[in-house]
């Protein structure tokens, strides 16, 4: 495939894809191209979003000639090398306290075994890795974060876990997710946080933005319970600093 690739998504819109697999420049390209489409404010585009390596333009394709929108996209794509675009401005670095393993996060040992490392080494690496929000998706405010070292290039499990709780930290394919709501998942549940991605009814209902960075320092179960008892903000004991 030659990137960027322009494809239809049912009759719901157009997807512009910058790579076949997750990579950092393609992720930046997707974010920057989305910002440019928002800036252009084409009337047939009702909303935009990004996935890991793609920009989505919501367009009613039964009401808009396909050639009209793809011409616009191709012209805009041709204006620059999107993989060289900078990250969005105003990003935040979050440190989110996390309990690894125990019955709160019962798949740490299994994930470590699949990755071929012992559980203590897994915790030592995961609790100090710094990851970036590559995209928000699946559920409100829910981040896909990466990329971890190649050790963590582990597949999703074949079956679905019936339910992980809100704040669950899960892992697959060099990425982490913290879950917004209780949900079934094919990713392995390795840590538990008290961080709320989605805070409906507040001034900032969505805590994270694509481009934000996070670490997940290890804490004990008692510390997590203490955080849960005291926290009303949804931050779950996380500290934050501005990235420039």
């Amino acid at each position, binding site marked *: 495939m030659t990137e960027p690739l322009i494809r239809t998504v049912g009759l719901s819109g157009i997807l512009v894809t910058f790579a076949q697999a997750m990579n950092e420049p393609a992720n930046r390209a997707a974010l920057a191209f989305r910002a440019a489409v928002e800036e252009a404010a084409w009337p047939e585009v009702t*909303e935009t979003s990004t996935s890991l390596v793609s920009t989505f333009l919501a367009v009613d394709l039964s009401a808009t000639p396909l050639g009209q929108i793809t011409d616009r996209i191709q012209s805009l794509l041709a204006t620059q090398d999107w993989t060289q675009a900078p990250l969005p401005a105003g990003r935040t670095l979050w440190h989110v306290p996390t309990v690894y393993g125990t019955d709160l996060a019962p798949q740490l040992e299994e994930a470590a075994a699949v990755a071929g490392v012992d559980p203590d080494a897994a915790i030592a690496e995961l609790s100090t890795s710094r990851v970036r929000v590559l995209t928000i998706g699946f559920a409100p405010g829910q981040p896909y974060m990466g990329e971890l070292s190649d050790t963590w290039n582990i597949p999703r499990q074949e079956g679905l876990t019936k339910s992980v709780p809100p704040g669950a930290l899960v892992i697959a394919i060099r990425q982490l997710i913290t879950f917004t709501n209780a949900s079934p998942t094919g990713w392995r549940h390795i840590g538990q946080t008290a961080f709320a991605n989605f805070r409906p009814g507040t001034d900032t209902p969505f805590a994270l933005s694509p481009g934000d960075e996070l670490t997940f320092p290890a804490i004990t179960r008692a510390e997590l319970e203490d955080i849960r008892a005291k926290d009303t903000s949804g931050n779950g004991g996380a500290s934050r600093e501005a990235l420039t």
Partner: protein
Amino acid sequence: MSAALDILQGGPSLSIQDMGRRGYRAVGLTEAGAMDPEALHEGAALLHQSPDFAAIEMAGSGGSFRATADIRIALTGATMAASLDGEALTWNASHAMPAGATLTIGGARRGSYGYLHIGGGIATDPVMGSRSSHLRAGVGQTLETEDTLPIGPDVHTEVSNGLTPSDRFDGGKVRIVASMQTEAFDQDTRDRFTATTFRRDPRGNRMGVRMDSEGAGFSTGSGLSIVSEIVVAGDIQITGDGAPFVLMCECQTTGGYPRIGTVIPCDLPRIAQAQPGTAIRFEFITMAQAIALGQRHAADMAGLRSRVAPLIRDPATIRDLLSYTLISGVISATTNPFEE
């Protein structure tokens, strides 16, 4: 005083729905809204108001309701037994509902999602631009017994109109277009997919509907490690066990499982309304065919109001017959209208 609707007794799965919430896909929130948007258009046509007005979606069964003022209602979607103070009401029709009368709506007899529309619409405070509940995302919630819902001002008065709904309540053929991962399934798998008669699994909700079939599943061979990519309502996702899931209005915004095709929007209510066990088959069509069908559907929705007609009622069942104006525009029986 503005009118309100009291829920005297609510079924297990009532929620407020409208055409959904746009603009939040980038932060992980799909549009949601009514499972059967066509039913919202029908209710709007029956009440002569905007299809953007919010209605009550009733999954599987209804409940009982009472209004604090004289209101108009319309009933659409899955056919449910309905009565007003014990008198049977026609489904797919509009009715007057006097203050204090009890509206009772039973279980779905044909289809899965019924709708109760109110003249003036449900007037709860919009959240992020919509009144619809996105149950999975935790925006809004199911309605409960003893809830009271505000009703918007109603500028129209006509009732007792009916509409014949489109044929979408009994499963059957559902048209799909190729998705971004259709090619990841080999031709034999795709042929087998369209040759298979599926049954709607009981496991179905506003997020997605699982399809059962005899025989082997439908795998790509490389399904577990593809890059997570955008998901839209109508996408047919194949999970690890090879069973298709048709993703519905409350689906996630992204997903890592391959999609064999996408149901075209105008056929999605057919999936929503199929009861468990109903037979469904999928048929690939081209984008050009899908676009033509989408345009025809939009025109059909815009023209629904012209298909609304007065209900024909048996005079023997009308209790207050004398209150109706049965004759108007009286003409003489003896003068010849062609002279003068």
